[in-house]
């Protein structure tokens, strides 16, 4: 099914002011309700190979998985929905292909990529992430970071050595503790949540959140809220105005109306329904 008219996706990526090439990759796909940001790293141009493989593999895997209705069932053991399990498997597949490519192609040795991917379905969202690319959400005027970075800095904050303010000044900024393609297997963080009609979602690479403070990101999206395209352009401009030391990618996503799956009357009931 297509989400045209139900969801609005806007994605922009820019190489920034300093780097010679863009190692980020993004994907927005209204047919499947999938959005992705990947931030590649590694030697000469290998970073963009890794992030490119991640976006392509995850998109293909999810597209094919959603078509295959025979296997539509949640994973009852883990309690995750079919879509969450599919998204996780797609990210694992991307890890596999990037790792194999890095092993077999000398010029790709050591390449890797972070990824944050969201799949919208049935007024819900499944979120998968590895590394320090982030998902933020604006809900009822509150700006919040949904994903928790897999980075050394985040570990130090979690352990109480740094306050989040001190962390922003640390030199150990860009050490990620997980990435796709580095090891034969990777642990993917999965979250599931409901989508409300006035939510706005922002996926971004660290080129945005390292360069622009959270309140400024929030204010920009709020100010240009009528037009996601303009909001995305302004976010990139802001990162570049602040120095643009890294590639910067933003994907904005927003529901335009309910995208609840078409179901029979009895399916409309929530999982735990009661009459008083």
């Amino acid at each position, binding site marked *: 099914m297509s989400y045209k008219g139900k969801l609005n996706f806007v994605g922009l990526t820019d190489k920034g002011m*300093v780097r010679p090439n863009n190692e980020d990759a993004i994907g927005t796909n209204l047919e499947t309700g999938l959005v992705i940001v990947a*931030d590649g*790293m590694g030697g000469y141009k290998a970073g963009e190979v890794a992030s490119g493989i991640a976006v392509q593999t995850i998109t293909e895997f999810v597209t094919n998985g959603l078509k295959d209705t025979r296997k539509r069932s*949640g994973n009852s053991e*883990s*309690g*995750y*929905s079919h879509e*969450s399990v599919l998204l996780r498997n797609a990210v694992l597949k991307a890890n596999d292909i990037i790792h194999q490519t890095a092993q077999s192609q000398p010029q790709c040795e050591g390449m*890797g990529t*972070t990824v944050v991917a969201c799949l919208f379905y049935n007024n*819900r969202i499944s979120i998968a992430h590895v590394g*320090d690319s982030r998902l933020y959400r604006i*809900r*009822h005027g*509150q700006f919040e970071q949904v994903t928790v970075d*897999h980075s*050394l800095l985040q*570990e*130090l904050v*979690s*352990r*109480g*050595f*740094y306050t989040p303010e*001190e962390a922003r000044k*640390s*030199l*150990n*900024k*860009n*050490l*990620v*503790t*997980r*990435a796709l393609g*580095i*090891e034969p297997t990777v*642990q993917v*963080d*999965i*979250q*599931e*949540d*409901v989508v*409300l009609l006035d939510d706005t979602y922002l996926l971004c690479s*660290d080129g945005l959140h*390292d360069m622009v403070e959270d309140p400024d990101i929030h204010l920009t999206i709020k100010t240009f809220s009528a037009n996601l395209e303009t909001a995305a352009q302004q976010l990139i401009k802001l990162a570049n105005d602040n120095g643009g*030391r*890294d590639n910067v990618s933003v994907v904005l996503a927003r529901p335009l109306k309910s995208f609840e799956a078409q179901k029979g009357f009895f399916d*409309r*009931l*929530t*999982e*735990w*329904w*009661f*009459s*008083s």
Partner: protein
Amino acid sequence: MGKLILSLDGQEIAQYELDKERYTIGRLADNDIHVDNMAVSGHHALILNILKDSFLEDLNSTNGTYVNGKLVKKHALQDGDIITIGRHQIKYLSGQAKAEGDADEFEKTMIIRPGAKAQGGAPSMDSVNKAISGGGAAPIAEAAKGAALPRAKLQVLSGAFAGKELELNKALTTLGRPGVQVAAITRRADGFFIVHVESGSGQGFPTVNGKDIGAQAQKLNDNDVIELASVKMGFYSMPN
């Protein structure tokens, strides 16, 4: 490379080059920095060096660890900090110019490889684990494995279904009555959170312990009482 200068009453006693990951400070002889004074605990404090940064952690000492006159438990050391332990002072010198110059150098993202040997200036995950596993915290690798997910259940406390139980064994559970009041409970690594989804006209927010949950997700605690669509439910944590 960072350096520590130990002194007592303004007299320098010793200098230490910080060329390994962990330094313990204490009264007992097995410490890297041995301070033989009754005001100092056996193992008083720990200094961890991770790449270019150093971190100080008090090891539950009797008399405490002070940095620039302030009592600290954990502290990210800054160039010139004065650590006070008993009557002894330790000055921390980071050994690096406050360089904006190498900005691009450290902006490049590197990966810490779990278990792998250090290479290309990036520490191995192993060494980082060792370095910051002191003070009773679980090593990163274990934390990262995402220890077992939390478990909890709901029990209906009022109405015709009183006594009915539901284990919250899904990542996302919606409950309530469509058109009246619906909420969702999400399971995350750090617990369960309830969020309001929709209400029919004239209906407000669900409540937890008698208070509106409002528009934001709210963390649930053991024995919380949720009221949703006029039904009261208890939230109970379960052992893993």
